[in-house]
């Protein structure tokens, strides 16, 4: 187990450097430069002054030099200063990561808490009313575009009923209480949950159906185990694996936030920051977000591998 974890970590470090190189190149390939955003046409700056700014920002250096300059700083914890907001990137990230994680983790947990039992029942009672009912919910959740669901929820609960606020994290000008936070979170969270339960429920259902036809389930029944034991001890552990995989695949969006949902609900998270920094060709911020997401994803994948190992002892003995 120890060797397994070390090996996974080493692979993750190699992958991390690969990711930073590729993103750096891709970011610089985007049309337009930060100078276009900073120096508006008609600003009255002379060509020399513009060249001076370019030099000070290091933009006149070859790409590879810029990359290593950035990498050296980053490894010392200096992510640079945002071109568009003139604040250290690290501070921007720390401001945004909290709200994003709050929203995405709570909606993932709620989605799993709904989808796993629902899928299990649907699989256990395959081709029953439960099964068809959960299929319909899953298809609606998966099929309806998030922006549509979001707007629909805002229309019903904020505009028509007036129960819930439609945007932001707290009421404007207030210091913000927990109940306010929950009220503001309800709609974006519901949108995300609905989008997620579709996949999770279907996966759990199919996985449960498959597991229940396995020989070891028959053995458990032949031993006289109660249906509860058969389901929770013998089936669930095996059936959870595909769901763990897709929950793991959701990791990047956990940290990166959902651009669409955060934008619609004006949620001050990573998604909106990402969108704004791409629009502003704000390389340091884009790179900062990318680094943060990739670190979380890579660490998450290592954790996921360990979780797999715990769920299924056959995995990774020789890996």
């Amino acid at each position: 187990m120890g060797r397994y974890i070390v090996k996974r970590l080493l692979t993750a470090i190699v992958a991390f450097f690969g990711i930073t190189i590729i993103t750096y190149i891709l970011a610089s390939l985007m049309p337009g430069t930060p100078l276009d955003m900073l120096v508006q046409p008609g600003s009255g700056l002379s060509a020399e002054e513009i060249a001076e700014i370019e030099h000070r920002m290091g933009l006149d250096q070859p790409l590879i030099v810029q990359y290593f300059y950035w990498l050296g700083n980053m490894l010392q914890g200096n992510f640079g200063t945002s071109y568009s907001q003139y604040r250290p990137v690290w501070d921007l990230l720390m401001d945004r990561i909290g709200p994003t994680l709050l929203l995405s983790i709570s909606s993932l947990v709620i989605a799993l808490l709904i989808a796993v039992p629902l899928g299990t029942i649907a699989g256990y009672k395959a081709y029953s009313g439960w099964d068809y009912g959960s299929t319909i919910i899953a298809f609606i959740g998966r099929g309806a575009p998030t922006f549509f669901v979001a707007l629909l929820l805002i229309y019903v609960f904020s505009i028509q009923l007036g129960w819930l606020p439609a945007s932001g994290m707290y009421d404007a000008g207030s210091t913000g209480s927990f109940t306010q936070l929950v009220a503001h979170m309800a709609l974006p969270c519901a949108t995300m949950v609905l989008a997620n339960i579709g996949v999770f429920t279907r996966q759990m259902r199919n996985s449960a159906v498959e597991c229940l036809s396995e020989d070891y389930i028959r053995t458990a029944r032949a031993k006289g185990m109660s249906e509860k034991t058969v389901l929770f001890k013998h089936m669930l552990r095996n059936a959870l694996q595909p769901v763990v995989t897709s929950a793991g695949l959701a990791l990047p969006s956990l940290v990166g936030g959902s651009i669409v949902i955060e934008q619609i609900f004006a949620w001050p998270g990573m998604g909106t920051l990402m969108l704004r920094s791409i629009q502003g060709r704000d390389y340091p911020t884009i790179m900062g977000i990318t680094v943060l997401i990739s670190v979380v994803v890579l660490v998450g994948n290592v954790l996921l591998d360990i979780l797999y190992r715990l769920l299924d002892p056959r995995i990774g003995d020789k890996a």
Partner: protein
Amino acid sequence: MSEKQTVLEVKNLTVSFYTKAGKLTAVNGINFDLHAGETLAIVGESGCGKSVTSMAIMRLLDEKTSEIAPTSSVKLKGEELTKLSNKEMSKIRGNAISMVFQDSLTSLNPTLTIMSQMVEPFMRHQGMKRKEAEKQAVEMLRKVGIPNPEVRAKQYPHELSGGMRQRVIIAMALSCKPAVLICDEPTTALDVTIQAQVLRMVNDLKKDLDTAVIFITHDMGVVAEMADRVMVMYGGNSVEKGSCYDLFTNPLHPYTKGLLASIPKINDNSRLFTIKGTVPSLKDMLCGADGQE
């Protein structure tokens, strides 16, 4: 043998499946008795209803897709099994009657240690605490000839060989000293030397616990080795019943004769004998057909 107590009485056992082609009868009015300490072999080719018979006795068939006819009766020590609720039946399964399946690789849960699967019958049927059940489980593993049972118990099924896994399954099935043990082709997936070991072990344990055994197989060699009595099945019907000796020396039914003639002989260079035709599909079977010309 006849002075021994009758432990299992199967009368007119009829099992049907609901399919798209209609209601099909897979087992058609099977009758047999089983005495304590006796081994009954059920033989026949694939699809003749051997396994369905045993699954029906255990009540392990899916009730949504199958039906045990209301006229059927399965009595275990006088208690009628076919009318029990699933909950009541689960207290009997693995306790008074248990079953060993064919494929040892897939019959154990891959994600649980041998120990956590072995303790289950003790805890469920004998109300033992985990500690006590663990002791019993190790004892049982030792009885089926697993070396180092304390170490093996902590391992997962994939770390054991096929023969060892099958021993574990047999140990699990016998842990509550059942009156009846059903073995559904328990040695088919094993190689011949391991097969012989497992068969000998089942025989020894059977004598030890005075358990009655139903042995399902299509291997006539295994039948000769294990069985006191034999029931030959064809197309869901029992076509011949008799003592093992009678059946081998004087088969009466043409199908039994064919089955025996199909055993390859070592000093005979002629072509292998085959029974003509295939087992008819259930939906082609006429009502009351029993393989007789």
